[in-house]
C-alpha cells in the first residue's frame, strides 16, 4: 500500500509538473511571440526579393554580362590597354610606359532592365553606341538564369585612306548574353556575337559570328578573379583569339579591374575581331578598367 501510495504521489507530481510546464510554455510562447511578432500584428508586406545576379559588373573584362544598372544610375568608365608587352620588363616598366589604347565610356540606365552606353576608344577614334536589355531573370532550380541582348553601332573616324564619314567605317553588332551563378561563387556565361563589317580595311564588308566565354570566381565579398575567351568564326577575323584574365575589386560604387590580355582593343566592334598577338606569356599586355557608379 505504501508503495502504491508513493507511486500515486509521484504520478500526481509528474502530472502536475507537466501541466505547469505546459502552462509555462503557453505563457512563454505568447511572450516570445509578442517579442518577435505580436499576436496583434499581421504582416502585410513581405520581404523584398532582390534582383538575381551572376556577374556583378556590366562587363567581365571585355565581354558584356547580363548585368544592368538600377533605373537612374550612371556609369563612368575609363580603361587602358598598355601596348608594350609585360615581358619587356623594366625597360618599358612592364608596359606601363605606354603608349596605351584607352576607352572612356558613359552609361545610363533609363530603366532597371535597360542600359545605354556611349564610349570612345582612341584606336581609330572608334565611337560606340550600344544598348543592353535584360530580358530574362529566372531561378532555374538552384541556378539563376540571366539573359540579356545587346546591340550597338560603331563608327571609326580615323581609318587609313578613308574619309571619316565613309559608310565602310561603320560596324553593327548584336550579342546574346547568357549568365548563371554556380554555388553562389562562380559566375559563368556565354556570349554569341554577330558583327557586320568585321575588319575596316576590307573593301567589301563581311559579317561573322563570334563566341565569347567568360567566368568570374568571387573569392570574398569584394575580391574576385575573372577570365574570358573569345573565339572567332569564319576566318575573316584577325589571326588569334583574344583571351584575358585578372583580378577585380568591387566597392559600393566602383569596380577596379587589372588583368593580362593578348588584345589591346577595347570597344566591342574592335575587340570581337580577335587579335594579332598569340595568347602567350611573352605577348601578354597589361590592362585595367575602373568604373564609377553614380546617382544624381
Amino acid at each position: 500500500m505504501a508503495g502504491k501510495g508513493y507511486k500515486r504521489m509521484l504520478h500526481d507530481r509528474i502530472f502536475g509538473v507537466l501541466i505547469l510546464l505546459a502552462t509555462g510554455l503557453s505563457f512563454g510562447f505568447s511572450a516570445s511571440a509578442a517579442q518577435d511578432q505580436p499576436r496583434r500584428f499581421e504582416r502585410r508586406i513581405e520581404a523584398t526579393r532582390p534582383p538575381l545576379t551572376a556577374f556583378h559588373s556590366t562587363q567581365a573584362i571585355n565581354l558584356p554580362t547580363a548585368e544592368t544598372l538600377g533605373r537612374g544610375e550612371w556609369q563612368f568608365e575609363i580603361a587602358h590597354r598598355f601596348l608594350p608587352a609585360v615581358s619587356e620588363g623594366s625597360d618599358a616598366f612592364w608596359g606601363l610606359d605606354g603608349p596605351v589604347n584607352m576607352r572612356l565610356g558613359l552609361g545610363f540606365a533609363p530603366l532597371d532592365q535597360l542600359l545605354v552606353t556611349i564610349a570612345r576608344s582612341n584606336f581609330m577614334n572608334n565611337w560606340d553606341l550600344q544598348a543592353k536589355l535584360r530580358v530574362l531573370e529566372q531561378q532555374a532550380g538552384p541556378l539563376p538564369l540571366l539573359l540579356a541582348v545587346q546591340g550597338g553601332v560603331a563608327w571609326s573616324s580615323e581609318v587609313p585612306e578613308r574619309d571619316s564619314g565613309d559608310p565602310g567605317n561603320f560596324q553593327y553588332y548584336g550579342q546574346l548574353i547568357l549568365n548563371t551563378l554556380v554555388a553562389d561563387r562562380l559566375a559563368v556565361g556565354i556570349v554569341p556575337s554577330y558583327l557586320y563589317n568585321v575588319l575596316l580595311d576590307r573593301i567589301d564588308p563581311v559579317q561573322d559570328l563570334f563566341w565569347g566565354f567568360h567566368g568570374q570566381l568571387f573569392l570574398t565579398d569584394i575580391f574576385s578573379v575573372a577570365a574570358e575567351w573569345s573565339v572567332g568564326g569564319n576566318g575573316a577575323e584577325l589571326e588569334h583569339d583574344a583571351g584575358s584574365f585578372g583580378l577585380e575589386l568591387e566597392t559600393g560604387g566602383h569596380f577596379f579591374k587589372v588583368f593580362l590580355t593578348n588584345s589591346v582593343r577595347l570597344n566591342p566592334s574592335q575587340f570581337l575581331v580577335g587579335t594579332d598577338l598569340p595568347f602567350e606569356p611573352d605577348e601578354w599586355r597589361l590592362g585595367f578598367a575602373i568604373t564609377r557608379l553614380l546617382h544624381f
Partner: protein
Amino acid sequence: MRRKSHLGFSSTLLLAGVVAGAGAFVPLEGQEYRVDLERENRIRFVSDAPLEDFEGVTDRIDGFLFLEGEGLGGETDLTSSEFYFEVDLASLDTGIGLRNRHMRNNYLETDEFPFTSFAGRVTGLTQESPGRFQAIAGGTFSVHGIERERSIGCSAEAMGADLRVRCAFQVVLSDHDIPIPKLMFMKIDEVMELDLDFFLSPADGGEGL
C-alpha cells in the same frame, strides 16, 4: 477517493493552465493604430563616409500601436500599451544597385534577417499642444538578428483621424554585429542616423483621436 483526489489535483492544474493561457489572449479595450501603407511613409538612414555621404530610403514599414483606454489625448494606461514596427531591409535603396547589393548581402544579410523591428510599449507621453504629442517608446530593437533594449523619442501629430509619427535615433553597427568595411573606398561611419516618418491610421476604421 485517492483516484478522485488525483483527478481533482490534475483538473485544477489543467484549469489553471487553460485560464492562465487564455488570459493572455483576452482583448483589451483601447485604440489601435496601424501603419497606413497607402501614405508616403519614409524610413531613411544616413551614413558618413570619407568620400561621400550616402543615404538609404524605403517606404516599406508596417506595424501597429495599441493604447489602452481612451488612447492618445485621453485617459490611458501606458503600461498596457503595445507597439510593433518592422521595416523590410532588402527594400532599402541607396540609389546605386551595387551598393544596395553590398548592403543586403555583406552587411545586413537580409536573406537571413529580412526585417528590422522595434517592439515594446510607450513609456512616456506628453501633449505639447492640441493634436501634438511627444512620446518615449521603449522596447526591443532588433536588426541583423541582434536585439538591444532601446528608448526612442518620437513625435506624433494628429492629422484628422490619422497620426503622423516622426522618430530619429542612432544605431551603432557594432552593437548589432554588423561589420564595418575597412577599405578606404568603402569605409563608413560606425554610427548610422535613422529618421522615420510614417503615418498611422485607426485600425478597423476607428475614429482615432
